[in-house]
């Protein structure tokens, strides 16, 4: 799952190495709110389910761990 997420992030923001820099994406300017829209869409396509709109908040996309947690808890 981690590799797929990194692949998605790299597709959206190829200028960053998400393998090395994997936290505080928002405060570092690596992602912005519009990128979140793209990430949600790509995660939904990649993993085959819709992410709850209430969870589409930047704190859930601020690190690789947060995104993994979002995906893992989404269907619970």
């Amino acid at each position: 799952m981690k590799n797929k997420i990194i692949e998605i992030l790299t597709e959206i923001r190829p200028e960053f190495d998400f393998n090395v820099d994997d936290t505080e994406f928002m405060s570092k300017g690596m992602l912005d709110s519009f990128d979140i829209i793209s990430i949600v869409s790509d995660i939904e396509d990649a993993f085959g389910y819709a992410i709850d709109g209430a969870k589409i908040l930047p704190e859930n996309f601020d690190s690789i761990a947060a995104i993994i947690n979002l995906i893992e808890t989404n269907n619970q």
Partner: protein
Amino acid sequence: MMFKQKYLEQIKLGVTCTNSYEFSEQVLNRLKQKEVLINSQSKGLFFAENTSYDFWRLYFYIQDISQIEWNFFRDVPLVIEIVVRNSKKELWDSTIKTFQNKGNFKVYDTFNRMFRDRIDMDVSGIDFSIIQTAQKQDLPIVKKLLEENFDAYSDRIPSLKELEKLAETIFLIKENGKIVAFFITERKGFTLEFRYWLVLEAYRGKRYGGLLMKRVLTFDPKIKRFISWISVDLEYSLTVHKRLGFKNDGLINYVLHRK
């Protein structure tokens, strides 16, 4: 504080669509502002922020759009921005239609986001000396020019405070001390977003626009990517961007308006 917190709790209850993608704390700060209207329904939360123009900006968190009562904030003009990925466009089309049919909103403008990765350009023979970055005293004039030449509803004209933050990436050309052209950009990490590009009508044909563009594309080698929101109605701008190698990145921004 607790009073506003309840809205945040409501937001967390199975929202199916929203146009607000901010940290919870930022949402709470917005809700705590004096000039904010809040409409809380069992299946949705709407809030509108006053702008310095003649409209309020609307944000929504909807749990079930079929059960929304649409008579909120009837006495103020509203503008909504809804940004969607084109692969989800069909899903959002029905939501936008509901805003149009039941909420009485009209689609005011539509923008596509375009991007271009950095390509090294040889600008060694180009004289950029007539271009300067904005100083504090330039900013009120820049703001006035923005208000005169851009659209308050769809172009998110920045406040003076916001312009101050952008100053180091605002490029100006002056003639006899008067600003006649500018290119306003915003640095977002290693990405540079094009915000406003203007050559005053009386000064067109002097290649100021092209010169500014070359400066913007090359001034900082650390910039890896350029992005720009282009209205679907601006064919000239679209053509220029395509000529420069920009492509759509799949994000669409619908600007809706209700008088």
